[in-house]
């Protein structure tokens, strides 16, 4: 495995507005374990607030995990300081959600693309024009500022920057969510082409199963800070085992209107419970269509139900 994260936990202190005393904490990530193999794309899906972006920040060590380990390239990144992390960062890069806010508005594209080498203390081995060509932009774009580009072009610059150091793993935190639908597919195709060309691995985070399906080899579904199901892409789409996964899949629109009209929709009621006060037992039971006493009493562990397939549910759907 290229990346092995084990039992990652991130708690944020919640302070009282007036006294500044710690009034409790939010567990944004609650025991997440995941693996990404070489050349593989792991899709991580879940609705807003489920902690998937925090996972991205933990893996790229923008945040320090409260506990757990992140094994990458033979080291545990969880406890490393910034100086020790610097060389590791060459192999572990990130693409951000908002292409404009992730590019410094005062820098030209050339300055942005020189950043990776400068911050690593390296001589630039790829001129900006070369990096731009990789992502389908023209050399004359190098001397423009970010605000002169469209969202799709700006995201291409963000991707070019992430690839400048020839990383092994790129964490993509909702890289297409901020883009127009017509542009989303172009960026997804670009990411896939680059993966083939450079042998990259991706951790691809999205709240949209459609995008994840397009690019992932395996998929992990997150709910309220924990992974509830992992499976190979096709197995997950064909036979979702966790009721939450089933609900997510039933929300993906189908291109065929007859199929769309005839299929069963699972509508989840209620909101995501507050991570300040998560429900006891199974976290999903407040919105699950079929909870019982066991679900209230005991939290289901992520267990293997078939090769390459793990579910955290007392009553998983049958899979062939």
């Amino acid at each position, binding site marked *: 495995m290229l990346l092995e994260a084990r039992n990652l936990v991130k708690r944020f202190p919640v302070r009282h507005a007036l006294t500044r005393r710690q009034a409790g904490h939010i567990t944004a990530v609650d025991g997440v374990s995941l693996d990404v193999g070489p050349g593989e794309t792991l899709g991580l899906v879940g609705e807003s607030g489920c902690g998937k972006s925090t996972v991205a920040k933990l893996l790229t060590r*923008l945040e320090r995990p409260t506990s757990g380990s992140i094994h990458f390239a033979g080291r545990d990144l969880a406890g490393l300081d910034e100086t020790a992390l610097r060389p590791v*960062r060459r192999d572990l890069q*990130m693409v951000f959600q908002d292409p404009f806010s992730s590019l*410094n*508005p*005062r820098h030209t594209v050339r300055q942005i693309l020189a950043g*990776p080498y400068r*911050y690593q203390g390296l001589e630039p081995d790829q001129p900006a024009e070369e990096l731009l060509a990789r992502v389908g932009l023209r050399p004359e774009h190098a001397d423009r500022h970010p605000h002169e580009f469209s969202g799709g072009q700006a995201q291409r610059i*963000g991707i070019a*920057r992430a690839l400048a150091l020839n990383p092994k793993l790129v964490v993509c935190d909702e890289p297409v969510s901020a883009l127009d639908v017509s542009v989303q597919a172009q960026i997804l195709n670009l990411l896939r082409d680059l993966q083939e060309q450079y042998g990259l691995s991706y951790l691809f985070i999205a709240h949209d199963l459609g995008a994840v399906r397009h690019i992932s080899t395996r998929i992990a579904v997150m709910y309220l800070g924990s992974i509830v199901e992992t499976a190979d892409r096709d197995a997950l789409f064909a036979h979702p085992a966790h009721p939450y996964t089933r609900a997510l899949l039933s929300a993906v629109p189908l291109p065929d209107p007859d199929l769309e009209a005839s299929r069963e929709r699972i509508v989840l009621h209620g909101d995501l419970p507050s991570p300040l006060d998560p429900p006891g037992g199974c976290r999903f039971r407040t919105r699950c269509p079929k909870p019982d006493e066991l679900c209230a009493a005991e939290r289901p562990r992520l267990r293997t139900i078939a090769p390459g397939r793990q579910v955290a549910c007392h009553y998983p759907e049958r899979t062939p």
Partner: protein
Amino acid sequence: MIRRLLAQRSAALALAVVAGLVLVALAAPLITWIAGSSPTAFHGDAVDPALGGLPRGAAGGISTRHWLGVEPVNGRDVLARVLYGAQVSLLIAVLATALSVVLGTALGLVAGFFGGWVDTVVGRTMDLLLSFPSLIFMIALISAAPGVDRRLLLVVVLGFFGWPYVGRIVRGQAMVLARGEFVAAARVLGASRRALLLREVLPNLTGPVLVVATMSIPGYIATEAGLSFLGVGVQAPTPSWGQMIATAVPWYAADPAYFLIPGAFLFVTVLAFNVLGDAVRDALDPRSQRR
């Protein structure tokens, strides 16, 4: 930015006035040489001892020898003193602004970027300085420091009490910028703290800093004039506008020109800088569409 600035007629005019003043202040020795006057030479023959030292002639003794008249009593040339006074006033204001901008940007940047105890220390210091009765303190400090060059002292004191105004704005901006995704992107690339501060955040602060700087120059000119008026600013024989206005006060009824000339210079300068500051802010803010 320059084009946006000059597109505003009032800004172009203010910029012209400011540029003209700077030019005239720089050319003070040349102009006084042409006019054949000096800021320190006494002209006893230009004043009338019988009238208590009132300048001879109309409008404060305006003549071909003294284009803007002479001072009462000792008869120093008003034009020369106004021009050399402009040098002193502008220099003090610009240097005090530079000092407060450097201090305010550096401290505001680290406070906003790092937060935590750094922010607490810098933030409380700014609160303290802003709530301090600074004018009284300046008067006390300056009068308690004899033998020090008053101009230098004014720059240091004005800059020291002025940096929190810059610091407050820079701190707020740096706080927002520090959370920006482009800073996170630089961190993922392995940028050091120094690089984050200087290469990523600082360039985004030039706009707001430029605006506070332009806006604070007229304030310093006025404060310097005020302190000189109160007798704790620039000391004679070094001329300054505030000091000239102060010495003109007892003469305003008998010799209004002597009061009006430095007053008009002060007024026009402060107004021009203020208009310019407003215009710079508008030019840098893409949201404020000028009609």
